[in-house]
């Protein structure tokens, strides 16, 4: 039986990928960022997930205004790192898990979430930077990855509540998969940042830390927070944080906080990172937060 054992949340700032790829991770500016992931690398080497369900957003790379799926799932056997305008990142090809992805798609659509199924998906920094932060620079990624792409570029994105509920539906899907798999779910993007216009550079530590607290301990309340609150308080691009709720929805009501890291700045962005574990013996399997 497949089981979601843990959730990881992390920002996916493109400059972090560039710093790593260009050998700048020990520079004074970047060292504190990577230091926040030293524990995480040891933790995941021991946790050994078979599959990561990686919730991210495409930044006008695989999708454009020609096609904007609100939620999409990558069901292919592999996903190629994308050229985002400066050449593709020198990172391994991302191997998918078509059987589990197909199962999730079928299960979740039957739970009234209309996922778009994608079989050709070049993955951008939103997906590859979190892999680099957690696994470093291996020759091949040590696990399979199922991309879940959420539209947060064209307003309105799905609500926090919708994301949270989709997380629950994905949990039910994984729990019903007939295969012995250790599965993690990652939520990426955020935290407070604004990349456009005269208000660019906005950071809101207070909002970010309150978000982290509520995501861990009171996600149902956080799920009810409307978009405008994120836009106003965390910046126009801070709205990516709804993707963290998708991750949280797939975990148990009570989780163990294993690691928490917050750092300003990573280029234009406040960087946040959490590792949350489900208890070893799952309670309320099937609908963990009903």
């Amino acid at each position, binding site marked *: 039986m497949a089981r979601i054992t843990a959730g990881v949340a992390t920002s996916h700032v493109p400059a972090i990928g560039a710093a790593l790829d260009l050998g700048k991770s020990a520079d004074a500016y970047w060292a504190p960022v990577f230091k926040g992931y030293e524990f995480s690398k040891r933790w995941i080497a021991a946790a050994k997930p078979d599959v990561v369900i990686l919730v991210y957003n495409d*930044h006008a790379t695989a999708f454009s*205004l020609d096609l904007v799926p609100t939620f999409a799932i990558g069901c292919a056997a592999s996903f190629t790192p994308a050229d985002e*305008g400066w050449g593709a990142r020198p990172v391994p090809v991302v191997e998918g898990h078509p059987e589990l992805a197909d199962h999730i798609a079928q299960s979740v659509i039957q739970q009234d979430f209309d996922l778009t199924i994608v079989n050709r998906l070049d993955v951008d920094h939103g997906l590859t930077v979190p892999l680099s932060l957690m696994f470093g620079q291996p020759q091949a990624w040590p696990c399979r990855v199922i991309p879940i792409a959420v539209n947060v570029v064209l307003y309105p994105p799905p609500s926090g509540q919708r994301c949270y509920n989709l997380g629950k539906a994905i949990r039910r899907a994984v729990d019903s998969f007939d295969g012995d798999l250790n599965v993690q779910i990652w939520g990426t993007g955020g935290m407070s940042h604004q990349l*456009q216009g005269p208000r660019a550079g906005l950071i809101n530590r207070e909002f970010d830390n309150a978000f982290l607290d509520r995501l861990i301990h009171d996600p149902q309340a956080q799920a009810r927070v409307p978009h405008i609150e994120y836009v106003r308080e965390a910046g126009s691009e801070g709205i990516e944080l709804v993707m963290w709720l998708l991750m949280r929805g797939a975990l148990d009501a009570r989780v163990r906080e294993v690691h928490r890291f917050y750092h300003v*700045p990573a280029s234009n962005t*406040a960087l946040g990172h959490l590792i949350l574990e489900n208890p070893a013996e799952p309670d309320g399997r099937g609908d963990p937060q009903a």
Partner: protein
Amino acid sequence: MTADKPYADVPGTTIFDTDQARLGYHLNMFCMSLLKAANRERFRAGERAYLDEWPMTEDQKRAVLARDYNRMIALGGNIYYLAKLFATDGKSFQYAAALMTGMSQEDYARMMKEGGRPIEGNRRVGEKARG
């Protein structure tokens, strides 16, 4: 027009909603074309000629040629699409962000290192900034 825009009073911010996306469709799709290395080369070799292949407005083309990112955003551009343009120029998100704030990249980077632009005074148009 989309009726409900609670974000209209957020200062210095243009939300890329469906109205903006309609306005900026060709501008953004021009930017998308720069994801292909061959197109980047063609654009660099003759920017105006390349732009003329796209059914963009003259204002949009001028904003691209001038690398006026605030203007491009006002004309329907979205930052993740416009990123293809500044990536073609070999520039970073931090370069583009600094440009849009009217700060030098050095001053902007310093502001970020000191904790970023504060939220106080930046929630609503007309709100009085503290300090």
